[in-house]
Each structure stands twice: as structure tokens, then as C-alpha cells.
């Protein structure tokens, strides 16, 4: 199947317009397979991507470049496994 999602990259353009990722500590809730994560991760200090779907997280982990400041974990947004004030920026990515 030859599905293409947002080849115009409109979503990324809006995300970068709404948030400055440079040097930020980022939490992405609902990261899925990392489709969106890779669009902004490079300029961040680090990214924690969480999702409930283990299969999607496996894909995200496989795709992760070795020098990437990104970690993925299976976690629920109502019990975030992080200390308080850990992040500068949080993204609810298609996850409501």
C-alpha cells in the first residue's frame, strides 16, 4: 500500500512555528512510531517519547539514529514516570 501522510510537511511547519525546540527538554506524549519526533529532535537537548502502543514504540526505537538525544518508553499520560519540572516543552501529539 502506498499511503503518504502529510508529504507537504504542513504539520512540521506549524509545530516549528509554535515552539522553539533549540536546547529544550521535550516530552512527547503519544509519540507512536516517532514520525513527528524525528522532525524536531535534532535541535533539542533531549526528547522523551511515550506511548502505550508497544508495537509502535518498537518501530520508533529501530528507526532511532545512534547519536539521537531521544529515548522512548511505554507509559501512560496519567502516571508520567518523571520527576517534577523535568521538561521545558510537552507535546500532546494526536493523543487526546
Amino acid at each position, binding site marked *: 500500500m502506498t499511503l503518504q501522510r502529510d508529504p507537504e510537511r504542513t504539520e512540521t511547519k506549524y509545530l516549528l512555528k509554535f515552539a522553539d525546540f533549540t536546547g529544550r527538554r521535550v516530552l512527547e506524549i503519544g509519540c507512536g512510531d516517532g514520525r513527528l519526533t524525528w522532525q524536531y529532535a535534532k535541535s533539542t537537548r533531549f526528547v522523551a517519547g511515550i506511548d502505550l502502543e508497544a508495537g509502535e514504540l518498537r518501530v520508533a526505537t529501530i528507526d532511532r539514529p545512534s547519536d539521537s538525544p531521544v529515548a522512548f518508553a511505554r507509559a501512560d499520560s496519567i502516571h*508520567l514516570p*518523571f520527576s517534577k519540572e523535568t521538561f521545558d516543552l*510537552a*507535546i500532546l501529539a494526536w493523543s487526546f
Partner: protein
Amino acid sequence: MVHALSEVRRVLAPDGILIDLRPLTGSWPVEVASRREAKEAGRVNDMPIGLEDDQAANQSMAQAAEQKWFLREREEFFPFFYYWDSPSEMQQYIEEEWEDWATVNDDVWKNIRAMWAVADADARLRVGIRMMITRWKKQN
């Protein structure tokens, strides 16, 4: 969902930013699109669960704003397109992946196939999802 927002607030630093990025239901248009033109072939039908999810998310964000957890700074809407190379691929995807969110009526499928039969050689099928992006600032 309000619990999730409370958790997000907890893990955000002072003056931290929350970006709420999500699709909205709303009878997304189905189009036959080529470089030359895009023609609407019909609309998808919203399913009740999608409408309920939108409402619940909006209520949660409104509640978080009322409690002064977050202040809305900016909001915009934009299209997010899904593209397929044929009606059969599109139909398979929608029926398998979007079964809880959207359906397409038989008469719309007929129209899609009729328009596809006479479309430009470079035409593809697309659905334009309406997206919302909102920037919220943590209130300290």
C-alpha cells in the same frame, strides 16, 4: 484527561510550554488531486466516538484553563493530507484503520471511482484532515 493535564503541568518547568496537536472531526473532504487541480468527490462521515473525543478534549483543556494551570497563547488550524494511489487502497485503509473515526458512504465511493476513472494521469486520492494546534503556557 484532566489527570493527564495535571501530570503534564507537574513535569513542566516554570513557564513551560504545552503544545496540543490533534485532528478534529468535521466531515473531512475526499478529493481526487493532481498537479493541475483538486476536485472534491464527497465527504467522510464522522463516527460518534470521534465527536465525543473532541468534546472531552476541549472540556479538559477548558477546565485546565479555568483552574489556571495553563494559559492559551495561540491557536491555528491547518489541513493534514493522507494520500493514496488508488480507490481500493484508500478504501482498505479507511475501513481498517479509521473504523472508529470515519466511514465513507457507498454513493461517495461510487463518485470517487467515477472521478478517478477520468482523472489526470498523475492524480491521487486524498483526505484532508482538519488539524488544530494550540500553544499553552504553564501558569506558575
